[in-house]
């Protein structure tokens, strides 16, 4: 999976029609709420068999930070 493909998966998980970009701040995304965080944990588990914690998610400030949680699994 490429970074762009993951970006699309994140947008879908956020149930958002509008585009998102790597530099967007999560606090500026209205869909980024507690349910979205739970959905994000499921997404990473399903895509990468990676269990991320709520704490790790809390530390993420931008979409890029979310993507960086799995740098090794993404295609260059």
């Amino acid at each position, binding site marked *: 999976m490429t970074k762009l493909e993951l970006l699309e998966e994140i947008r879908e998980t956020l*149930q*958002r*029609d509008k585009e998102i970009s790597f530099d967007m701040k999560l606090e500026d995304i209205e*869909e980024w*709420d507690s*349910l979205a965080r739970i959905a994000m944990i499921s997404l990473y588990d399903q895509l990468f068999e990676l269990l991320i914690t709520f704490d790790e998610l809390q530390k993420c400030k931008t979409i890029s930070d979310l993507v960086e949680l799995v740098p090794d699994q993404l295609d260059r």
Partner: protein
Amino acid sequence: MYTQKDIFLVTGATSGIGKGVVLSLLNQGAKVIAVGRDSKKLASLKDETSRKKNLILEKKDLSNCDGLDKWILNISKKNGKLKGLVLSAGILQIAAISSVLSVEKSKELFEINYFSNIQLAKGFCDRRTNIGKGCSIVFLSSIASIRGDSGIVGYAASKGAINSAVKSLALEVARLGITVNAVLPGFVMTELSLSWQEVYTKEYIEEMNNKYPLGIGQVEDVIGPILFLLSDKAKWITGTELIVDGGASL
């Protein structure tokens, strides 16, 4: 009461309770997306309403839950965001637990009565599908889920699963302004029950009638409570099981 901007999707729309809900919502001015698997029966719905423009027909077989969440999202993209969802599609199997394949066959029952309905509810709760505050989902459960009877182990369990799911789902989506409730009808004379005439003989119906303090119900007895739960009058009601059974479960 409603306008064309109030869009409802109803499954199991070609017969019984689902059909009654479709026609009543149309009468109240709403736009209705009627979902059924039989295209002839779907088309005949148009003959039963003068508000044909507000009726959208969608042929869909709900016997496989895969992708139904995306399907309902696409429907809303095509027709506008939804205000309400009535999940009345379901099947009934009557089989003693000792019958051949009674357990295996109940997987098919759960796929429709539980998984497909939950998948549709999931799609409805997507922010892109619904209008937000003031939305409602009504599941068609049954009093079989709270009162045991022989021969309906799988059916009763599939409806019981709905009752339990409703409570958690109601909590999960309350923030989005969506209410989630289940209606538990008693025995009403629908096409589904008529199709089981070898079981529901005249004698059986008479016996049933005696068990119902207010008599066996008709389809319209269940429609009113469903319309109520869809309406703003029920905006503070969520996670409930509304028993509509003429007092049979008392």
